[in-house]
C-alpha cells in the first residue's frame, strides 16, 4: 500500500473520532494512534480490500484499548468529567439536551454503532466488518443506542450507565 493512500481518509477518521471521544485533543490522539498503527501494520492490509474499513477497524481497536487502559486508571475516567459537569448543574434532575453529552453517556459499543451508521453512513454489513461483530449484533446495538439517545435527548433522567468513580 502506498501510505499516501491513507491521507484522504484522515478528515473522516477525525470526524468519527471527535464524535466518539468527545473533545478535540482526545480525538486527535485517537487518530494519531490509529495512523501510527496503520502505517506500521500496512503490510497487513490486503490490496483491493476496503482501505477505509480497514482504517476504521484499526481505530476501533485503538479505541477499545484506550477504554481498557482508562478502566485500569479510573482517575482518568471520562465519566468523571461528566459527573463533574452534572454536579455543577443546578437543576435538581439532570437533563441532557446536548448531543455531545448524550453521546458520551452512551455505552461505547452502542456509540460506535450509532456513529458508524448515522454519521459515517456505513451499511450494517460494513459496520459489522469494522467492529468485527455479526450484523445481528450491529442491529441490536443500533436499536439500543438510538433508543437511549432518544431518551437522553428527550430529557430522561440519567441513571443506569453512569458509574460513580472515585
Amino acid at each position, binding site marked *: 500500500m502506498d501510505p499516501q493512500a491513507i491521507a484522504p481518509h484522515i478528515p473522516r477518521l477525525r470526524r468519527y473520532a471527535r464524535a466518539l471521544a468527545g473533545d478535540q485533543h482526545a480525538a486527535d490522539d485517537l487518530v494519531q494512534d490509529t*495512523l*501510527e498503527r496503520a*502505517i506500521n501494520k500496512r503490510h497487513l492490509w490486503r490490496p483491493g480490500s476496503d482501505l477505509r474499513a480497514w482504517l476504521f477497524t484499526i481505530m476501533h481497536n485503538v479505541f477499545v484499548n484506550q477504554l481498557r*487502559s482508562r478502566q485500569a486508571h479510573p482517575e482518568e475516567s471520562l465519566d468523571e468529567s461528566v459527573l463533574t459537569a452534572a454536579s455543577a448543574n443546578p437543576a435538581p434532575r439532570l437533563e441532557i439536551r446536548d448531543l455531545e453529552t448524550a453521546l458520551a453517556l452512551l455505552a461505547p459499543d452502542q456509540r460506535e454503532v450509532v456513529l458508524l451508521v448515522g454519521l459515517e453512513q456505513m*451499511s450494517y454489513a460494513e459496520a459489522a466488518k469494522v467492529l468485527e461483530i455479526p450484523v445481528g449484533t450491529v*442491529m441490536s446495538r443500533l*436499536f439500543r443506542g438510538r433508543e437511549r439517545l432518544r431518551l437522553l435527548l428527550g430529557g430522561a433522567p440519567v441513571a443506569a450507565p453512569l458509574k460513580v468513580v472515585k
Partner: protein
Amino acid sequence: MRVSEDDLQAFVDDRLGPEARRAVEAHLAAQPEDAARVRAYREQNAALRAQFDPVLREPVPDRLRRIDASRRSARFAVAAGWLVAGVFVGWFAHAFLGASAPPPARSFARQAALAHAVYSPEVRHPVEVGADQHEHLLNWLSKRVGVKLRAPLLAAEGFELVGGRLLPGDDGAVAQFMYQDAKGKRLTLYVSRRPPGQRDTAFRFSQEDKVGVFYWIDGPLGYALSGELPKPELLAVATAVYKQLNP
C-alpha cells in the same frame, strides 16, 4: 408483511427496498409511537451530521500530517525486526496508555537508534556511497538534506569513515554517516535538519535497547551519534564530533 425492529432501523437509514419501505410506511401510519421513534432516530442522524460534519472541513493538524510524512521510518521497524521490536512495543504501549507523546528530540534519538540498528550490521551494503568517494558523498548528502554537511574525522578516536546513506526522516531527508574501528565496531552519525520549533540543546543521552545515543541540536542541524559502546567511550566520540563541527 410483519415489520420488525430491524426493518424500522433500516427505514431510518433508507436501506430498504421499495416493497419493504411501503410495508413500513403502512405500519407507521397505524402505529404513532413507532412513527415518533423513527422520526426521532432520523433527527439523530441529521443532528450528528450537523454537529460533526464541520470537522471534515477543518485543516488537518500538523501532528497528524507528519505521521504521513514520516511513513517510511516505519519500514526500518519491519527490517530491524526483533532487534528493535522492544523499542516499538514500548512506544506503542506508551501511545495506548494515553500518555503524552515523547518530545521530538527523544523521538529523534529513537529514529537514529533504529537506523543504526538496521544498517550497522550490514556486511555487504552498510552504506550507499563509500568513503572512497568522499567529496561526492558530502555533496550529495548536503544537497538532499539542504544544509552543507561535513563528516568529522574520528581517526584519533580509532574510527574511520565507511561512507554514508540517505534516509527519510520526519522533517525531510536525513544523512547517516557510518564509522568503523579496527575490530569492526560501528558507530553511526545521524544528521537531520533541525526539527521545527526546536532550539539548540546540550548533549542528551538516550539508551534505546542496546544502542546508546548521544544527540544534540546545533544551529540548523540535529545530530545523533549511535553505537553499542560504553557510555563514556561514546561520549568521548560525541565530544570529538561536536568539536570538529564547531572549531
